[in-house]
């Protein structure tokens, strides 16, 4: 187990390192550069040279790369050209917002998805299953950002139950009590988290239904039924427990989905997170910010799949890691 874990961690670090290199190269081979005079901005060439020197952009690519990696190892992802602040500082304020949004969405995704999947499987091929099947297919196929816009239209504009954007009330927030502040944050969180969670729940429910039906066809379920056990007990205890394993795999896959969704949903709802930061940085060609965001997202994905693998081995004693049975 320990040897497997060490190997698995080493592989994870190697992947992250490869991602760093890849993103660095892609970004630096881009034709557009910052500080280039454009139609709107006329810059004195001497000023451009000065700025390029100041940020080390005049050095050879190799030197820039080594500097970047060394700085990264010291926990410094660089300096944002457009925001004129250290990226570490920017990320420190945006990443918690993204984690809050993704965490809430993940909870909705799995709780709702697993519940719908269980209900569908227990009534497989009946009317409720077909109706819910179409509903989950809809959620699975809908563009996240479009669902967000529709929810804004219905719940934000027409019913005015929820705010249409932002993460807090910009005027009243500082004057609110602690409880009021928590409520205000939750109120602003509701729509974006619901959008992201619903879209995820569509996929989770489809997956969970298939996993449950696969277990339900096995002999030990027939035995349980033959013993005269109550249907509810068969589904909740015997089937569900065994169908929870694939959900752990799904958890590893959910992270890239949530981070992708975050880029779009944060843009729709003006949620001040890492996804919106990255989307905005593309237009200012703020290389270090895009690289740092992509890097951080990859680290989260790699960590997520690592955690899923470990959880899987803990949850399923049939998988003996390190004895040739380990999955890379």
């Amino acid at each position, binding site marked *: 187990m320990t040897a497997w874990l060490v190997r698995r961690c080493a*592989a994870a670090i*190697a*992947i*992250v390192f*490869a*991602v760093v290199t*890849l*993103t660095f190269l*892609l*970004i630096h*081979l*881009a*034709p*557009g550069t910052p500080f280039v005079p454009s139609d709107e901005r006329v810059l004195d060439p001497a000023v451009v040279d000065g700025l390029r020197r100041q940020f080390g952009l005049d050095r050879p690519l190799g030197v820039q790369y080594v500097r970047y990696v060394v700085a990264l190892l010291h926990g410094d992802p660089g300096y944002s050209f457009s925001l004129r602040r250290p990226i570490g500082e920017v990320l420190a304020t945006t990443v918690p917002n993204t984690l809050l949004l993704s965490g809430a969405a993940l909870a909705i995704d799995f709780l709702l998805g697993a519940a719908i999947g269980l209900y569908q499987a227990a009534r*497989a091929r009946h009317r409720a299953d*077909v109706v819910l099947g*179409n509903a989950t*297919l*809809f959620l*699975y*196929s*809908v*563009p*996240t*950002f*479009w669902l967000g*816009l*529709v929810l*804004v*239209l219905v719940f934000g*504009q027409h019913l005015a139950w929820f705010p249409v954007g932002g993460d807090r009330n910009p005027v009243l927030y500082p004057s609110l009590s602690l409880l009021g502040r928590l409520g205000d944050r939750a109120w602003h969180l509701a729509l974006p988290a619901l959008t992201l969670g619903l879209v995820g729940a569509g996929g989770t429910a489809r997956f969970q*239904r*298939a996993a449950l*039906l*696969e277990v339900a*066809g096995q002999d030990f379920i027939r035995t349980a039924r033959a013993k005269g056990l109550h249907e509810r007990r068969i589904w909740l205890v015997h089937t569900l427990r065994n169908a929870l394993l694939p959900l752990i795999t799904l958890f590893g896959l959910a992270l*890239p989905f949530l*981070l*992708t969704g975050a*880029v*779009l949903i944060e*843009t*729709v709802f003006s949620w001040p997170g890492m996804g919106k930061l*990255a*989307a905005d940085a*593309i*237009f200012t*060609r703020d290389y270090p910010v*895009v*690289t740092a*965001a*992509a890097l951080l*997202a*990859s680290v989260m*994905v*790699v960590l997520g799949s690592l955690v899923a693998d470990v959880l899987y081995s803990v949850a399923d004693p049939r998988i003996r890691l390190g004895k040739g049975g380990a999955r*890379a």
Partner: protein
Amino acid sequence: MTPRHWAVLLALLAAAAIGALGLRAGTAGSDAARRFFRHPTAAFAVGVLLFFVLIAVCAPLVAPYDPSAQLEIVQLQNRPPSWMHPLGTDLYSRDLLSRLVFGARVSLAVGTLAMLVAVSLGAVVGLLAGYFHRWMDGVLMRLVDVGLAVPRIFLLLIAVSLWSQLPLAILVLTIGLTGWFATSRLVRAEVLSRRELAYVDAARALGAPPARVILRHVLPNAVAPLIVSAALGIGSVMLLEASLSFLGIGVAPPTPSWGNMIADGKEQIATAPWTTLSPGLAIVLVVMALNAVGDALRDALDPRREAT
């Protein structure tokens, strides 16, 4: 919108319905088709896809106006649906139905072509990795590990930012080149399980060169999961194109795509919701149909797997 345009629209709708029902009737004899159409939504999904493909092909006949023409910038700005403009007009007084119809061309073409790039590349990599094993497998699969580790949207954000104004062909290539990782794993797994079978050994023993063994004996057996992943792939590529266009880095205006139509309408969602709703519904319908067809194909092409 003249009666002629309505007539063409209805004719295409009828053609799609007849085509889908005809397909079901015409293939009634085969086992695979029976498993395919056993899915309650399969015939309907085929009809929806046929309808949108027909609309895309016959776009100039269905669209009452030029999709990028600004008709009357004072009178026709953000008008709600009417008989003249069945889906309304947008902020720039362009007819939304015409944009939707020509947008179908762009969105469907981007989806199909990018999926073809992704699936063929994934198939080639999967075949090479699975068949030659050893070092090639190691190198290619580590590459796939890296590709899967970066959420695709970030890869695309970086790649797309390489060009300031993205040509459509490059967009298709970029989406394709970032989408083959999962397919290659799928094909590799299939090849790994095949290459040890006796009939492949027999082909090798008869002196068939690797290329022949791969193309004639291994690939045909790995084709079912490829077709399914292609059907599901078009849908996910269409969603991706829409997302990129929504962020303003996909299909460049004024060329209409369903994604940049939503982007055009998002600022006026409160005052002119029809500008956002119709392209979104079109995407949802087509992607739902593609996913339903993908599910049905999976059951149809793999008789061993029990239908769920």
